[in-house]
């Protein structure tokens, strides 16, 4: 990930700073919390209503089943997809990692003398740092999703999987537009939106290349599906001469019906819509005699850690359809927002899982799997029924097994386990702890606790002591 704030950024969270600094910066930003509160609450409410209106358990079961089928049959489906894409007249490229994907895009741009690129919102291009690479090669890149356009103007990375500018209040955006687009002051979203439409319309008409991600890639028909509400997805896939879709290999699905099911699951989960405004299914370049549409369509199938993630037994994480519902209900995300997750395209609970997993070393971003209270709200809303707390727990274990936990923590865990292993040791440990609790110098964890919270005292007598005094035999005594 190479997305970084430029100097003009007003963002308070520095995605390059260490984790504890990012969290601190986020928690100190009251405007950020206002923006997050307003948005996450409403998105969650809308999702709840949309799910209550249908047979949600069945939708989730079926969505899970079709995604699970896709991952279980990934190599076969990918070959089928490739075959049908080629039959449809697409160029197919395979990329093991970010640099191969970027290389493929740059090569197309060079061969076709591309100057201007329009992009529709795509997390995978954030993941590989495509914009920066294109710009370094002298290609002009414009983000066309309104939210992405705003963060690009601000020189910031997006902070949410589906709502990139969720961290900004209307006031903040207005200020930005005044500065960058010479717009008079307004907090009317319609006026700001109109300004963006005007600004971006020319870009659509001028660009030589459109780049999108892909929500689903249908193996059966060789079709790339894009979900948008603004219509920029349709623009990007229709107006420029060259269309490039960069698609994670896990996005493949079996059939059109499966894609249409997941489209509805994603729409309801992301924003509470029955369906998104646009669902664009591109199966190749425009046909002879068609008046518009790209004359050339490329599909880049990107691995970049996905096959390794599945190899590690985390196929569950590959089921994700990137709806962002887990972030919207996450009490941690709500406090710190997406930038606190660092230099990653994926924030919130699923981000805390896939960010380390997509790396070669799972101890990369090792704070993230611990940035959860394991409350389980995310699991309850996931449209493909990913057991996110379970994956977080497993990742924590992997990180500890790699010896990547702090030494004092490892020692404490060992001592605790040792004390708890036998009742005799346990009682001694309790007595010891009770005595030490009276000393002014407490062990570190309690100091951390006490900075913001009162600490309970050890009881004068433990339950087992009270129980013994009660004169009832413990079962051990009874057995003697």
């Amino acid at each position, binding site marked *: 990930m190479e997305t970084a704030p430029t100097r003009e950024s007003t963002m308070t969270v520095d995605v390059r700073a260490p984790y504890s600094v990012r969290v601190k910066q986020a928690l100190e930003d009251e405007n950020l919390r206002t923006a997050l509160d307003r948005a996450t609450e409403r998105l969650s409410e809308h999702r709840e209503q949309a799910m209550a209106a249908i047979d949600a358990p069945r939708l989730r079961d079926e969505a899970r089943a079709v995604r699970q089928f896709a991952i279980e049959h990934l190599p076969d489906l990918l070959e089928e997809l490739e075959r049908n894409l080629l039959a449809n007249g697409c160029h197919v490229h395979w990329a093991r990692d970010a640099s191969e994907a970027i290389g493929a895009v740059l090569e197309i741009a060079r061969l076709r003398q591309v100057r201007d690129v329009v992009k529709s919102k795509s997390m995978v291009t954030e993941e590989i740092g495509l914009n920066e690479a294109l710009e370094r090669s002298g290609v002009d890149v414009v983000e066309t999703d309104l939210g992405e356009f705003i963060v690009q103007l601000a020189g910031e990375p997006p902070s949410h999987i589906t709502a990139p500018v969720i961290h900004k209040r209307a006031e903040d955006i207005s200020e930005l537009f005044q500065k960058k687009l010479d717009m008079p002051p307004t907090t009317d979203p319609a006026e700001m939106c109109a300004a963006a439409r005007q600004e971006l319309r020319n870009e659509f008409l001028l660009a030589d290349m459109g780049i999108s991600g892909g929500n689903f890639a249908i193996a059966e028909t060789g079709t790339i599906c894009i979900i948008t509400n603004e219509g920029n997805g349709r623009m990007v896939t229709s107006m420029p001469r060259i269309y490039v879709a960069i698609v994670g290999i896990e996005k493949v699905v079996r059939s059109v019906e499966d894609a249409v099911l997941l489209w509805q699951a994603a729409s309801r989960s992301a924003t509470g819509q029955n369906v998104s405004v646009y669902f664009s299914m591109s199966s190749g370049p425009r046909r002879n005699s068609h008046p518009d549409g790209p004359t050339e369509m490329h599909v880049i199938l990107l691995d970049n850690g996905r096959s390794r993630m599945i190899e590690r037994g985390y196929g569950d994480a590959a089921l994700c359809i990137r709806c962002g519902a887990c972030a919207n209900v996450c009490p941690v995300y709500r406090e710190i927002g997406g930038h606190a997750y660092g230099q990653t395209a994926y924030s919130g609970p699923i981000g805390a899982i896939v960010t380390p997993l997509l790396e070669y070393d799972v101890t990369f971003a090792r704070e993230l799997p611990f940035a959860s209270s394991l409350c389980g709200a995310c699991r309850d809303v996931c449209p493909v029924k990913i057991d996110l707390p379970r994956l977080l727990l497993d990742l924590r*274990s992997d990180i500890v097994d790699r010896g990547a936990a702090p030494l004092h923590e490892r020692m404490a865990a060992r001592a605790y386990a040792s004390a708890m*292993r036998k009742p005799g040791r346990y009682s001694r440990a309790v007595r010891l702890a009770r005595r030490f609790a009276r000393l002014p110098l407490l062990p570190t964890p309690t100091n951390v606790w006490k900075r913001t919270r009162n600490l309970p005292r*050890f009881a004068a007598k433990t339950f087992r002591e009270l129980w013994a005094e009660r004169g009832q035999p413990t079962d051990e005594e009874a057995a003697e």
Partner: protein
Amino acid sequence: MTPPPPDSSTRRVALFVTCMVDTLYPDIGMAAVRLLEAQGADVVFPDAQTCCGQPAFNAGYRHEARTMARNFIDVFWPLVDNSEVDAVVAPGGSCVAMLRNLFPVLFEDDHEYRRRALQVAEVAFELSEYLVDVLGVDEVAARFNGKLTYHPCCHLLRELHVDSQPRRLLAGLQDAEIVDLPGADECCGFGGLFAIKNAPISTAMGTRKVRNIEASAADVVAVNDVSCMTHLNGILQRQGHRCRAVHIAELLASGLDGNGADEREHDDR
């Protein structure tokens, strides 16, 4: 207090007191015992029990957690297997969730312990779940004078799916005025090691919860897990609020003999 004479219908319950209740809140353990005995259950306390291993498990220390979980199974499984007890009951949902949902994960590669864990889990219940679902209790003879609200602890709500049971028992408290808690389903921010490792976020979440408790105008917020209770009281006290989090066992047992909880509660204020 003498329990009713055992007969064929008497339930024999092994109390899994949990390590936090044992060392920090023994009165809650005693309240749970009184509640169970008042319903005619025979309570035994296997005193070789220590900790189920959840803190270590959640922190990623599976080896250590397994050590503790084995001890737990060594203590409780024989009682269950020999039919010496009908149930294992704990005054908290989080530890029950550990043995019901996570012991099978912990013993994935240990067939025998996995089998035993599942056998224990089958008869393991959180206190309010046991009272309502198994003993069929609808109402206990207890009163609470004031405004009461309920915070559903996450593992109870989303791991065990226990919610109506405690609410029903609390609704039966005489004189209690039950008030709504805004954002009730949101986590209080405890989360075990999370409260230490991510103390600033944990505190922010707890502060949000406490604001909602304040907005509910409740005198007491009832909870089923002492971990969340400790977190909430830590923040309520530090931020100078009058309201306190009280464990459901103490509220429900307040009408029974030998109650020492009330005075402690008053001390706090």
